[in-house]
């Protein structure tokens, strides 16, 4: 089972002019086997939602709840959330100089599983995962995200998704900055993950392009810090045709 339940979530960030509320009551439930797409214009708070779920210290939850299989996520530290089964694929993955990808992956896997992976299987898993994402075998010796191209960063995020195998994956603008080939490779990785039993996906995106490769069960239009409309895949098509104009006008 894996259900991520977000209820009436309000989130603020500290700014020079005092606290500013970004999320204004988000309610969303992602169940087993479901892929939800959150679509919205820039500045609507999509990324804030992603980072708040992951527990980034910059964001303060002022009210509301986030529960994973009934457990209170907001009570957990950042690493506890990951160990509980949440994963955030970031839009801007961070460089960690001097820490090799293979060391990083092994350390993360050990932390998530509570024990070191069996070496023989692990090396095989890592190599095949990297290969499927069209990442060279020498990738493991490079420092995490250092000197990676935009596409390599995103493919590395998806490699982590597949290897760490969480319950619910939040993908924050994973499609941004990818050419069409990389977009396909990344989408296939997400689909492989989603096809596993009991997995949920929350796909955050500005554009409909990635939805040609990842089929959402639900689409939510996100405007001014909350869900303005929810529907099926057809809602994405309407957005493709008409843009966010009508929601933006309504929000003013």
């Amino acid at each position, binding site marked *: 089972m894996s259900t991520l339940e977000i209820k009436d979530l309000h989130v603020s960030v500290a700014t020079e002019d005092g606290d500013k509320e970004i999320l204004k009551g988000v309610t969303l439930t992602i169940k087993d086997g479901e892929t939800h797409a959150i679509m919205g214009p820039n500045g609507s708070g999509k990324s804030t939602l992603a980072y708040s779920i*992951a*527990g980034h210290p910059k964001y303060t939850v002022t009210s509301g709840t986030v529960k994973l299989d009934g457990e209170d996520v907001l009570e957990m*530290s950042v690493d506890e959330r*990951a160990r509980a089964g949440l994963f955030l694929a970031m839009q801007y993955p961070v460089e960690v100089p*001097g820490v090799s990808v293979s060391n990083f992956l092994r*350390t993360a896997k050990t*932390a998530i599983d509570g024990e070191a992976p069996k070496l023989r299987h692990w090396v095989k898993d890592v190599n095949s995962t990297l290969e499927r994402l069209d990442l060279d075998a020498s990738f493991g010796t490079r420092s995490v995200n250092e000197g990676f191209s935009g596409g390599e960063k995103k493919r590395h995020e998806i490699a982590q998704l597949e290897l760490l195998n969480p319950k619910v994956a939040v993908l924050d603008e994973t499609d941004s900055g990818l050419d069409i080939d990389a977009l396909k490779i990344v989408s296939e990785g997400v689909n492989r993950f989603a096809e596993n039993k009991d997995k949920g996906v929350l796909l955050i995106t500005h554009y409909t392009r990635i939805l040609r490769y990842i089929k959402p069960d639900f689409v939510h239009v996100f405007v001014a810090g909350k869900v303005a409309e929810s529907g099926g895949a057809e809602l994405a098509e309407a957005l493709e045709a008409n843009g966010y104009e009508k929601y933006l006008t309504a929000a003013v």
Partner: protein
Amino acid sequence: MEKVASHLHPEGSYDVSAHSAPTGREEIWRFTPLKRLRGLAADATFAPSATATTWNAPDGVRVENVTGDEAKGLRGISGLVPNTLFGARVLAEVSDTLLVDVPAETELDAPVVIDLDGKDAGVVEAAHVALRFGAHSRATVVLNHTGSATMAQVVEVKVGDGAQVSVVSLQDWADDTAHLTHHQAVVGRDASYKHVAISFGGDVVRMDCNVTYDGPGGEVELLGLYFADEGQHIEHRLFADHNAPRTKSHVTYKGALQGKGAHTVWVGNVLIRKVAEGIETYEENRNLVLTDGCTADSVPNLEIETGEIEGAGHASTVGRFDDEQLFYLRSRGIAEDEAHRLVVHGFFNDLIRKINVPELEEKLLATVEGELAKNVLKDAQ
């Protein structure tokens, strides 16, 4: 060589009486806690050494404690003209010299390891070390300082034409040590010289590491790794004097600080003289502040007298753990202390790899781990 009017160049002299004891107001002494040096920089009497010196050397190299005229003849082989009282005193008052002599064209298949194990910090002592590398030789020398000592030291290095040389100086002293040391090297035509300073232990460690060139084409890499704990003062001053054309200097020093009163100083001086056309220099100092109450001073100085160069630059940073790095690692399930450990190891890893002395690599990684256990990982124990 023309004179350069610059604070980088106090006039040197072999004459002890030409120097006076520093007051702490001088530019080159302003960071150093002179009181804790127990008179090393001033006029403390140098007693017979209480440091046990032993070595392990492969065939083909002569390592010996030499005296008399031979020792005298080794003073100044690096071109050193002392610009400090202690430098002049060491050359004038210390009668013997620890000599490592690598003949021309000799290629050593293992490093020369010299262990200097201090037995008594109550004894103020001084030492002169000469490392002579003949033309086209290839060698690595490790000076491994441990134990308790109060030591003034001059290390002179002569790198012959075309030689490829590494000198590693490890300051792994006990907590009560005061170590004031000056490493001076002259690098021959088309030679390459790598100098590595690794400072972990001691109450006060101050090292001046200077390099000049004896002909064009010399390449110098100055690497440093330091870790200052509570109350420790660790100071590294570097000077690459580009006095010949088409020479290179590349400086990378990285340090971490933890605990109240931990103080590190890095001063990187580079001078590009008029004659030094086509040179290339880059210096970099990075400091990772792990706890409150530490001070890291980082001062790059670049003086350029000719614009006809390939490149010159520097970078200097003092910072804490990067919150975004920690968030990234923790968002993958890695607990906070483990994330700290990864970041610090990562910070030093590139540098440790560059040292390229396999015998040392494991020891250094273990030392970093040991340092981390004192503070960053203390809560996890």
